[in-house]
């Protein structure tokens, strides 16, 4: 064959950036291989981060009480993991996060659907949703205490006000971008009113809704971290309270240890969202693009 001929073979590989773009359904790496290729970049990133941190500490840039090294922090994390304080706090905080997020979910989904499709509500409240989203949690504290006293509901109130607008915005965005042809098809096959939502609009908007839920989760969690200081029940320690007190007591290693715990929780939750998103993308047939 002539030299200016481009060959694509089943076994050959393409070089350059396009190699990333190409679908690679043929490659069927082993389960172990896939696990490894999903894991090593994480390990590498972690090692890199720890390495840089350790080097910075070794340079003596800051005093050890201002910037503790990885060894100090990890050993503090180790002993932290052995305390019941962490697990009790985690249990309290996780329960609050779950309940608060669930409430935000209901409020956000309903508001979002209503605002997206009812014109008067949209004109009245549409812009308000983003405005509410920008309101910092502490501004709501007085109202939360007024309404719910020093009960856990006050915390949920702050969490819902933090997360629901974000979820609603995700829903509105999703509904706005449902391809009109699908709505027409749905109406044509007899989906009217609630059925149109249930069978067409909601599933079509699902990807954007999941994205909104992810953002909503972040808002919920951050609001919770602040809100947990609102009602500190002496017998119930919580991650939010521990974070703030670690900072107030200038316990740098503990503060970083709690940050690591928060990151790990974030990673776990993200992987749940990631799995949901991947399942949706596989169904929709948009998964292969980036090959992952």
């Amino acid at each position, binding site marked *: 064959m002539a030299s200016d001929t481009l060959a694509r073979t089943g076994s050959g590989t393409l070089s350059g950036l396009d190699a990333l773009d190409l679908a690679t359904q043929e490659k069927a790496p082993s389960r172990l291989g896939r696990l490894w290729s999903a894991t090593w970049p994480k390990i590498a990133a972690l090692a890199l981060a720890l390495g840089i941190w350790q080097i910075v500490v070794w340079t003596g840039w800051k005093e050890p009480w201002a910037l503790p090294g990885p060894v100090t922090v990890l050993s503090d994390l180790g002993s932290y993991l052995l305390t019941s304080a962490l697990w009790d706090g985690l249990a309290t905080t996780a329960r609050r996060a779950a309940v608060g997020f669930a409430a935000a979910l209901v409020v956000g989904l309903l508001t979002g659907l209503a605002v997206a499709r009812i014109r008067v509500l949209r004109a009245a409240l549409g812009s308000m949703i983003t405005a509410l989203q920008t309101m910092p949690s502490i501004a709501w504290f007085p109202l939360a205490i007024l309404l719910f006293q020093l009960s856990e509901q006050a915390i949920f109130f702050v969490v819902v006000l933090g997360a629901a607008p974000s979820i609603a915005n995700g829903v509105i965005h999703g509904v706005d971008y449902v391809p009109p*042809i*699908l709505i*027409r098809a749905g*109406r044509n*096959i*007899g989906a*009217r009113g609630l059925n149109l939502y249930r069978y067409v609009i909601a599933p079509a908007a*699902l990807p954007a809704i999941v994205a909104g839920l992810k953002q909503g989760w972040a808002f919920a969690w951050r609001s919770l971290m602040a809100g947990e200081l609102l009602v500190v029940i002496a017998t119930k320690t919580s991650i939010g309270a521990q974070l703030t007190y670690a900072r107030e007591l200038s316990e740098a290693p503990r503060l970083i240890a709690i940050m690591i715990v928060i990151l790990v929780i974030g990673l776990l939750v993200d992987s749940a969202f990631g799995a949901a998103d991947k399942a*949706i993308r596989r169904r929709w*047939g948009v998964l292969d693009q980036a090959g992952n």
Partner: protein
Amino acid sequence: MTSTTTTPSSVTPAVALDGVTKVYGRGAQAVLALDGVSLDVAPGEFVCLVGASGCGKSTLLNLVAGLDRPSGGQVRVAGSEQSAGLMFQEPALFPWLTVAANVELPLRLRGLPRAERKERVAELLRTVHLGEFGGRRPHELSGGMRQRVALARTLALDTPVLLMDEPFGALDAMTRDILHDELERIWSERQLSVLFVTHNVREAARLADRIILLSSRPGRIIYSTRVDIPRPRRIDSAEVAAIAAEVTDRLRTEVGRHGQ
């Protein structure tokens, strides 16, 4: 220039268009897609609509299906609200549902029991030669296969009026011939009224009781002919060819006048 084709006034037409006009957009950007179209489809009648690309055929079907409102004139469909099922020009399948679930959805929306739904879906998928593909998702199908799923979904509707927008455009001749037979069978069994858009004049002659020609921008009815060939017909028969030739001639004059 606006000609009107109506059935004898004694019968209530299944579909009645009365001076229907449709304008897209506003102001300088406005497009007059349909201009005073009046057309009756009798119950049980099979009407084919032909016309140049962009002349307003899809627009007309959308109006009859109630997915859009006319800018002027009246559209009447006999029966209750959901009485005209439309097969869109694009497949318009729901990407989050399997092929079987796509076909099942209209049945589910009508509240059919589960067992019956399953049976009907299997039957419909067999009708369009996709019996083994029920578990796939739309993105795993070829273009022609998607079109056939859309056909099955529309047939699942069981509406007395069927609107079809180039339903066989992406199919090879053989598959199409088979589906012509199937459609004719279903049409006569269910006594459907059909409004069928096609670019294939032979297909129109093969299927229609009446062929209607639309002019290009704005869409007006410029020609209408009855096809009196007895059924069953064959697409490669001489009678079908003769009718097709006649319509093609008319179309040629029309496009010749408007094209470039």
